């Protein structure tokens, strides 16, 4: 009966698919390709209502095989993708994009550009939302390639410019590229999403032509629009832009403050701390201490000498001046139950001493002040340091011994 036939057909289809999968996972590309030729028959009677239709499956599997098969060539790949484009109309744009990526990976930039512009002119029935999105992506990537051409020509011009030779046609072409790229890039940036690559290119273009206001606006929008997903890179770009243009410290600090709130463990926090430490305002120095403590909370920073030296320097400053010890106390309060085990165990003292002497020096200083001269970490490191006749460790020991009352005040 037809039901049985359907059932059998489905079964053999699934079996074939699992054979292909097995072969692919064991890197037997030839075998997989052979099985795929059988699987193509499943297109004939496509009863499935599953998430992934056989035609999509064939596209994906075929691409994978062609990427790895030893005998495949670019020509074959192009031929296969053209077939796939006609196979599934709904997927046309996706296939195009994939094709472009493949071309780009193989360094065929001109072909990729052609492919993109070709697919841009593609129309099919009513535009759905998904198509709209995909079309925007395609345009954006074309914009990216335009940007690539533009920067290439810019480099040529700059080189030639040094020779005092000007080429009008190249310059004109470059401006043409700029216009096309700017148009397409601007479009995608307005859609909420993570567009780091596009934003960077767009800002670069604008900066070259001196349109700083537009660039700033774009970056601000990208960083602060709540519709966009929280993206730390957006803040970084804004910060770098402002820094490039010599903006005031205040605006830089405000950008980094927000970045600190979003990602307390960001690399820029070291710069931020240094900037804040230098500041004359009390409030900012207080913030600086907060920032560096927060950075060292994270496991990734555990053995970072720079971060520890920043903290050590600031703590030392505060201790010497004997002002604002309450800042340390406040920061320490929320950490005193787990920092000793996390940072200042005897095991880590041993390891730090063996692996990185200057790290152990900075950490010992902090430990000595926060936990007193009897803490394991400080005792081990200072003992080893004195034994090894390193001067600064002797000084360190003296310093901590002298300021031991501070520890009592902090922990009290």
């Amino acid at each position, binding site marked *: 009966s037809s039901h049985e036939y359907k059932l059998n057909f489905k079964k053999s289809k699934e079996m074939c698919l*699992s054979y292909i*999968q*097995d072969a*692919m*996972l*064991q*890197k037997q590309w030839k075998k997989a390709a052979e099985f795929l030729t059988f699987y193509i028959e499943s297109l004939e009677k496509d009863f499935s209502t599953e*998430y992934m239709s056989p035609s999509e499956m064939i596209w994906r599997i075929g691409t*994978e095989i062609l990427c*790895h098969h030893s005998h495949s060539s670019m020509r074959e790949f192009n031929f296969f993708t053209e077939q796939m484009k006609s196979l599934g109309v709904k997927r046309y744009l996706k296939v195009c994009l994939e094709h472009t*990526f493949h071309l*780009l*990976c193989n360094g065929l930039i001109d072909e990729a550009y052609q492919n993109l512009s070709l697919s841009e002119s593609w129309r099919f029935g009513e535009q759905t939302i998904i198509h709209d999105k995909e079309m925007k992506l395609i345009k954006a990537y074309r914009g*990216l390639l335009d940007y690539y051409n533009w920067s290439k020509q810019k480099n040529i011009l700059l080189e030639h410019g040094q020779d005092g030779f000007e080429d009008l046609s190249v310059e004109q072409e470059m401006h043409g590229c700029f216009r096309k790229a700017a148009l397409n890039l601007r479009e995608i940036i307005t859609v909420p999403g*993570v567009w780091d690559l596009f934003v960077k290119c767009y800002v670069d273009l604008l900066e070259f032509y001196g349109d700083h206001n537009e660039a700033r606006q774009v970056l601000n929008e990208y960083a602060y629009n709540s519709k966009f*997903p*929280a*993206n*730390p*890179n957006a803040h970084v770009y804004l910060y*770098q832009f402002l820094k490039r243009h010599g903006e005031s410290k205040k605006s830089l600090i405000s950008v980094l403050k927000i970045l600190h709130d*979003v*990602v307390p*463990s*960001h690399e820029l926090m070291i710069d931020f701390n240094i900037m804040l430490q230098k500041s004359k305002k009390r409030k900012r120095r207080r913030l600086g201490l907060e920032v560096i403590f927060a950075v060292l*909370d*994270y*496991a*990734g920073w555990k053995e970072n000498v720079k971060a520890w030296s920043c903290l050590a320097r600031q703590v030392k400053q505060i201790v010497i001046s004997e002002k604002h010890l309450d800042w340390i106390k406040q920061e320490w309060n*929320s950490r005193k*139950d*787990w920092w000793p*085990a*996390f940072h200042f*165990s005897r*095991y*880590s003292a041993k390891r730090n001493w063996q692996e990185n002497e200057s790290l152990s020096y900075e950490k010992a200083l902090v430990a000595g002040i926060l936990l007193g001269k009897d803490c394991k970490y400080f005792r081990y490191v200072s003992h080893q340091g004195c034994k090894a006749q390193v001067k600064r460790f002797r000084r360190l020991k003296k310093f901590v011994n002298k300021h031991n009352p501070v520890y009592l005040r902090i922990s009290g």
Partner: protein
Amino acid sequence: FVPRRGGMGESWEPADAATVPLLPPNASCWVPSVAPQDILYGGVLRRKLQAGKCGAALDFTKQLSHFFVDHPEDAFGSVGRLLHQNFYLGNSKLKVSVCPAVIMPSPTPHLAAAIPSLCPLSSLQRQARDCTIRMTALREGINRLEARRGCSRRHLVPRLRWFSHLSRDWLFEVPLGLLADCVHEDLLLQWTSLLFDDSPTGGALAWLPPKDVGARTGCLVYPGGQAMNHLCILPCGVSLGREGRGHVALPLAATPDFQDVVLEELPCARGSPAQFELNGRIRQVAAARVDGEDFVGVRSDYHCGVWRVSGRTGATPTPLQVIRTSVPASCLTVSPHLPGELAVCTQSGAVYLWNIETGLQRLRHDPQTMFFRDHSPWRWSDFTAHPRVLSCADRTGLQCLDTRAPERCHFDLFKVGEESGCQQGERVVLPMYVGRAYSSQHLVITQFSVYVLDERLPLVPVLKWVHMMKAPPLFAHLTPGDRGRSHKVLLGTSRTQELLLLQYRGEKRDSGGGSRSACQLAGPPQKLHSIASCLQHLPTQVPHQHCLLQQRLSAPAAGLAAALQEDGLRESLLVFQLSEAGDEAKRSQEPCASPQPSPTPQEAKCPQEPIASPQPSPAAALRYCHWMNALSKGCGEPPQRTRPPTFGQKRLFTRKELEEPSAPSALHEQARRRLRQAMRDGGCIQHWDPPPPALPQPLELAAGDPDPLSIRLTAAWGWDWERWWEERTSFNMAQRQQALRERRRRQKRARGRHSLSASFTSSITYQSELSELSDNAPLPLSP
């Protein structure tokens, strides 16, 4: 521009043709888990249901009837005892007639007891008939029904219907409706766990890498024993097979309640401490190294424990603390940051931070799922880059909680939905913090895909890959690749034993600062051998044992661990797999074909054969042999627990009959004598033949010709049977014809008698029919 996929991954070649058993098989017999056919409808109904396209149909009636048969005491206990007078289990009719001689087979003593006396007091008999149900007839009816199951038009015997109607309300110990509900509920539970069992999530196998860089002896932590309730910590590596055995009982003393999680007394080591006996099946073993010491967390359904395995080699693992939960725990993870800190989740939706020193801290208690409604009570929790921030997961996504202020400070890390490009019906199966590879990254595994997430860029996955495994991967293991090499992720499924190796490259920080390359997959994923794949390399078995072996080897996987070994230029990845059948931790070793991302220049160097020759190495073959021997030794002998079936005599005999006669009869005396004699001689009694009983006098047949059966029977009685047969076979043709004629005449006469006796009792009719049959029988036999 860098594609999300691409780049050459490292190519790993399997060292052996299949997995190799590492440990001797679990000697205690493994009870195979429930298979779908055990609880699903078979036969006609199923086909009908399938045609109607309504999923799986649970064979509820079968299960309920199994329950009645297997636990009759629970089902009918006291009511049965009350009523057993009124049930008659004998074979005969209960019909009482005036002539007692007609009741041919005497009723069983049981009935004799039930009916006060068999004296022909008709009123008593009538009473007995009225209030006694003949179960035999009912059973026959049921059997007949069974035989006619295929028949489309089944008629319930009216009597059966009457009986069930009458007894439905009072026969069952537990009200039938309630019992049925319970059975059905359990059946549904079993079925869902058969479809997807999330209790072993995380895997019950852990590898503790060697402490020193030079040392090559790590530790393998795995469950063993009859119920997978022994925690074994086996130092392994170069020195395989050093294994201590000892048992530690885990006491069940409870201290005051702490919400639904209770601190318990420690198991204390006794004897050799490499093995601990726990009082629950081990579901998960988690391990992490902090400050050079390994902390091993062990989760069973209602208990979680933590052990410390200190850095020194040969040091004994020390149990630290045990907690008991009132709801099954679903997750236990060990902090990679702080010593003695763990995260525990229970199925009631509670998340705890468990510190050995400070105790338990409840971070959240929410039976509802986070982002949308999902019925699964499964929860998971793991650590993040910040030692005070925990990630909490349910089937709908991940959230990060600050343990210092769990109510206020949290943010969403992953949500099943549009942002991550999830499919419909996609659910989180296993989240994992991969701090060892990159301190702020998490791996989120769903039944369809693998996502890599960064804490700093929440909700938008950095990497997504569709793994296309047949079952949701419950086990994952990450081997970080240092110096810009790819991280290797192993994914394993439970029921289908799939094992997949994929590689990805994390964010790389260039020295120039600022510019970073994104996460990307490296090379195509690879499939590794499953446990079942070694079946073909095992010594050949007889079909029956082959079948058993296959069943055992294809038991669901229970854990996964891996260890990277460097030996000069050659690198190998040891992959350990544990099956639910017990200790079959297996090893598959893969020497790296190209340690650097360059194409395969070193393939020739690999001493182990590449995939081209799928034959196990001699060493592996030897291991197979050893394993098989151990298996047949361990599981071949019949289990000791099963005793021969015994019968209660009480039901069969009355007390009177069981009573010893006051004076031993002559027969007894004789038997005793013979026994003594035999014992004295040291011989044995070959056949216990009592002196032949006095032969009953051959019946004096009434006048008229005796029928052959009677002759034959008489001959048999009189030990003269052989002669009779000879006589019979030596009949000549004429005699036979004569006999035939004789017989016809006799039959005619018999028919007359027949009709007469038919009105008398049916039992006689039956006999005469029988005699006729046996009468005909010898004829075709004779030559």
